[in-house]
């Protein structure tokens, strides 16, 4: 009996260890996608290490620089680049920026970001679907940043998206899972990985999204504005791992109203 339990436990651990997710044919064990904007390049390497991140986003417009300190020099080689199209205001601009990224040698991954609002930087779902169609057809691994709308998510999957990246709350707001219920629906209904992006301000919020079954978390501002960037990157890693383990293990029962009745209402049934 004890041996069997031990064996089961071992299997669980093994399962955790091979718990990976796949994007564009690449397998990733880390479920933490790190942003690279908003903080200094020297800290990027430390943040990547502490975060254990295997994917790092970077703005193509940021690599469009001739300064000596190119951001690409600071990103470790084993890390997959996820260039984003920030600065694009419609599908055509996003497509142009994505192609530019490929020419710059940033690979085939692209995070489509299309914003037509300079205040809240909310994504334009319609333009995002259009850009995803074009880029997926050109062989890009497209990860669209989106407002969590079920129909859009389905359209994106049909258009060839490798994952969908719904926002938790507005970029930089650190407000956490304001769109919780809608993200839950996407996780339930959408078959590609759902990566929660934008607005995650604390490790606990990242943990909660992972408990819900998100495939990964993308965070930038929360880490960039922390007092100790590498320390916060490490805190996020642990929170994401904890949330994932909780999801895999199956969350325990949470009693919503009062305690469980000791006299069940259905106790009268005789068969």
């Amino acid at each position, binding site marked *: 009996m004890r041996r069997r339990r031990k064996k089961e436990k071992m299997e669980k651990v093994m399962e955790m260890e091979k718990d990976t997710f796949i994007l564009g044919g690449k397998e990733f064990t880390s479920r933490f996608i790190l942003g690279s*904007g*908003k*903080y*200094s*390049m020297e800290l990027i390497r430390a943040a990547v290490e502490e975060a254990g991140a295997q994917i790092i986003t970077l*703005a*193509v*417009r*940021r690599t*469009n*620089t*001739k*300064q*000596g300190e190119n951001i690409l020099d600071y990103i470790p080689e084993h890390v997959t680049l996820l260039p984003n199209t920030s*600065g*694009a*205001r419609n599908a055509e*601009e996003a497509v*142009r*920026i994505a192609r*530019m990224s490929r020419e710059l040698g940033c690979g085939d991954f692209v995070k489509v970001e299309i*914003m*037509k*609002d*300079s*205040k*809240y*930087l909310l994504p334009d779902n319609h333009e995002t679907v259009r850009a995803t169609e074009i880029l997926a057809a050109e062989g890009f691994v497209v990860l669209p940043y989106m407002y969590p709308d079920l129909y859009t998510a389905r359209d994106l999957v049909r258009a060839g998206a490798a994952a969908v990246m719904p926002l938790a709350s507005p970029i*930089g*707001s*650190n407000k956490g899972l304001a769109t919780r219920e809608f993200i839950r629906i996407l996780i339930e209904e959408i078959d590609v990985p759902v990566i929660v992006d934008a607005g995650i301000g604390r490790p606990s919020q990242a943990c909660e999204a992972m408990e819900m079954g998100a495939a990964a978390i993308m965070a*930038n*501002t929360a880490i*960039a*504005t922390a007092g100790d960037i590498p320390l916060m990157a490490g805190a996020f890693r642990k929170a994401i791992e904890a949330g994932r383990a909780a999801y895999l293990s199956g969350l325990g029962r949470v009693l919503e109203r009062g305690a469980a009745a000791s006299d069940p209402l259905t106790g009268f049934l005789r068969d």
Partner: protein
Amino acid sequence: MENEFLVDAETLGEEALLKKHRLERDPSARTDPTAYMEGMEVLASDIRDKVLGEMESYDPSRYTQEDVRRALQKEDCSIEDFKALLSPAAEPLLEELAQRAKRETGKHFGNTVYIFTPLYIANYCENYCVYCGYNCYNDIVRKRLTMEEMEKEMKIISDSGIEEILLLTGESRRMSDVDYIGEACKLAARYFRNVGLEIYPVNVEDYRYLHQCGADYVTVFQETYDLKQYEKLHLLGHKRVFPYRFDAQERAILGGMRGVAASALLGLSDFRKDALASALHIYYLQRKYPHAEYSLSCPRLRPIANNEGIHPVDVHETQLCQILCAYRIFLPYVGITVSSREQKHFRDGIVRIAATKVSAGVSTGVGDHEEKYTGEQEQEGGGEQFEIADVRSLNAMYQDIVREGLQPVLNEYVYV
């Protein structure tokens, strides 16, 4: 102490002096500042009325420290809250304003500070703005760079590492016409990643052309939003037309420019009202054109050639800091540029709180970057628009920003 702006250059002829004095002394000799001149496009826009309406009813003395505290506690800063933050009642709470402003800056911009340099390509001017070194009655060396001279300057600036340039001209449609500026943009686009313009206001079609030439950002300063005062300070030329200037940003956006900047020149009129109007100008533009990018500047009056005494009256550093904190809290997503009109200690301090962009390696003269960057000079440069207060090179500025724990950024932009 009020400013004494009026100076008679010795080189002016009798007739010119006569005209100048009439403009200065006799309001009836001046044109109606609200009447458009021939060729000026009229936009049907309600932004001006909204901004001026709010400004006119603003009484800064009405606000109390309680109002300021309430504004600071709220998550979203309303126009009323912003008015409180700009009021004298907020001055004793400046540190609290700064703390809040710093948080907002961090959320939207992280630790980044952008660096750019302005390049004055011509200083001919047809306006008589009494406080400006380029005004048509001021005795300065006038110059318009040829394409060869311009390219030489651009090479020198580009070699220093600068990637964002702001091209400036005096306001002469004759001596620096749109075609000339367009050629300058095309040239600049070869040497720099990001090209902005600070030129006289033009029509939508002209902005569209300049955008096609490679420019994507337009800065126009209204100088003062107080029409009565505006009329007394801008005595001659197309700049005298207040509404045409006011609508410049809107025309630039309609012409396809990605971003626009605005500001009053602080010290010309009631600075609190002008600061309110500057921010509301941007606020209402953003509501109407949410896709565009916006930024605010905060120039204060500076001494000019032949008038060393010009000063920003009652806008001291404390007031300027208060204005910038209030801007940041009211418009957290807007860029804030602090120019070399301010001294090193102020710029170093304010980038930690609210500013997101600073200039470096600045000359406000025409064609003298070679001299300033390399110490060599082939020919005499054109006169300066105003005296700068921070002469740091790009390299010095870069290192100082790093020392403040921030990240200097030379470019984060692609032309699409």
